[in-house]
């Protein structure tokens, strides 16, 4: 893929994720921004995560094991980024760089482990899919 093709592919990926999440959460795609937190902005509850994962699997014809879909931005390659109670200062710096438009003002007292699901955004899913298809050297399969 050349650069233009890759940008179009990513654009398309994002639209498809937005469409899937919108259907699962009873929203209009036009209401959804890439930086939206599934929980805080889009009202997702625990069962919705099961549903979204299934719909992503069906849309992209893949199987997603365990929670890897949600780890995305949160996965810290360096264990020093995550402490017993939450994310270390280094971890926060890394997250802020990766998610520059996220609404960090929602966490004035830092981020505890219980807050992790609130960090899952549309972008988290798009980034996961992008990494996965890059690693596999494949394009995202077309919608059915």
């Amino acid at each position, binding site marked *: 893929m050349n650069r233009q093709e890759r940008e179009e592919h990513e654009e398309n990926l994002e639209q498809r994720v937005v469409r899937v999440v919108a259907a*699962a*959460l*009873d929203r209009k795609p036009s209401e959804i921004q890439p930086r939206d937190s599934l929980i805080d902005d889009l*009202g997702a509850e625990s*069962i*919705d995560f*099961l*549903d979204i*994962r*299934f*719909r992503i699997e*069906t849309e992209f014809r893949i199987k997603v094991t365990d929670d890897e879909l949600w780890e995305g931005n949160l996965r810290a390659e360096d264990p020093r980024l995550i402490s017993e109670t939450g994310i270390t200062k280094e971890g926060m710096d890394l997250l802020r760089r990766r998610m520059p438009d996220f609404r960090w003002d929602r966490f004035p007292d830092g981020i505890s482990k219980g807050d992790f699901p609130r960090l899952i955004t549309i972008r988290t899913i798009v980034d996961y899919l992008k990494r996965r298809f890059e690693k596999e050297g494949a394009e995202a399969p077309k919608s059915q």
Partner: protein
Amino acid sequence: MNSRRVVVSGIGLLTALGNDLNSCWAAIQQGKTGISRTTLFDASGFKRQLAGEVKDFEPRDYFRFAKAIKITDRKTRLAVAAAAMALQDAGLAFEAKPSDQTFRPVESAPFESLGVLMGAGSSDLQVEEMARAIGEDPELRSAFDIPFFSSKILSGVNPLWLLVNLPNMVSTHVAIQVGAHGPNSTVMTDWIAGAQAVGEAAALIEAGEADLMLSGGSDSGVYALAFASYQQAGLFDPSPPLPSFTIGEAGAVLVLEEREHALKRGARVYAEVNGYSCAGSAADSSGQARALRLALEDVLAQTGWHAEDLNAICCASIFSDPYWNAERAAIESAFESCADAMPLIEYKSSVGHTLGASGAVDLALLLKSMQGTGKPSRALVNSLGYSGQAATLAVSQT
């Protein structure tokens, strides 16, 4: 005598005749039928292609939390809609929001002790979802390899499938949508579920377990699996002079309220629930007749009413399904020489057999018919099950 008495103070109804109580009743008065060609699925392969479908139903108009619609089946949606309308009809805590005509609870909703006890039928099991998953197996290996079927094909079914199809979801979603935190249960006795739920809910109020209950029945048989089952069971074969069985669907919810509670808040009262009984017997026509006779006799003993006291018996099966012979035999046994003079009415020929909703549909329409007559009236509602169960409710307007 029990000092706690139970009245009906609100009704919400959706049937093939209309999407609220008044339009259903107006259609009955005009002699209309709600039965028409099935549109909810392609019934062209079945012997019977007519059904009593609820038309132009938009669950979004009634769900406070629309996201939940995806985890509900048709009967749960009809139940939520009927419950919202019943609460509004009872003057309780719901008001129409003029901007979008959806139902909203007012902030003072006194629903901490509001209970929900609904009768509900089967689920359509989302056969299309299953078929889609099986379509992923073009070589049909799953037909002979069950471990393969379980691991590879069923994993293609949405993980929320179970939530949609669990039988208790009718009462669950009604409670969630209206914010009812009181006793919550579901009666799953198929065709008599609606009548039985009302009887059981009234008993909870009499026992002091609750002052307010949402109760009734909700069911839809307008899906391929139900049509297939009833066709296999022979119910689509006409048995002259009776016509073929016609499947319907409905949501029928009543607000049951402790009488003093209702009077204190100045509620409009449709009627009092004076008696309830149910019985079970073998699943043949003599067993069904016996079960219904036992229920009828028990209710007459509870109320002290005699044949001449009754203004109407709302029949479960008259003119509309193969069980009229059993019901007629039960009425003849219970009322003996007076049986021929009993004033019999029925609604299924207008709305179809609404299965687990039917007892509550009949009760709702009967209570509406008693409104405004200006004279005291007493009536019974019969409900007759496919499997030899029967229930009878006694109601009066004073």
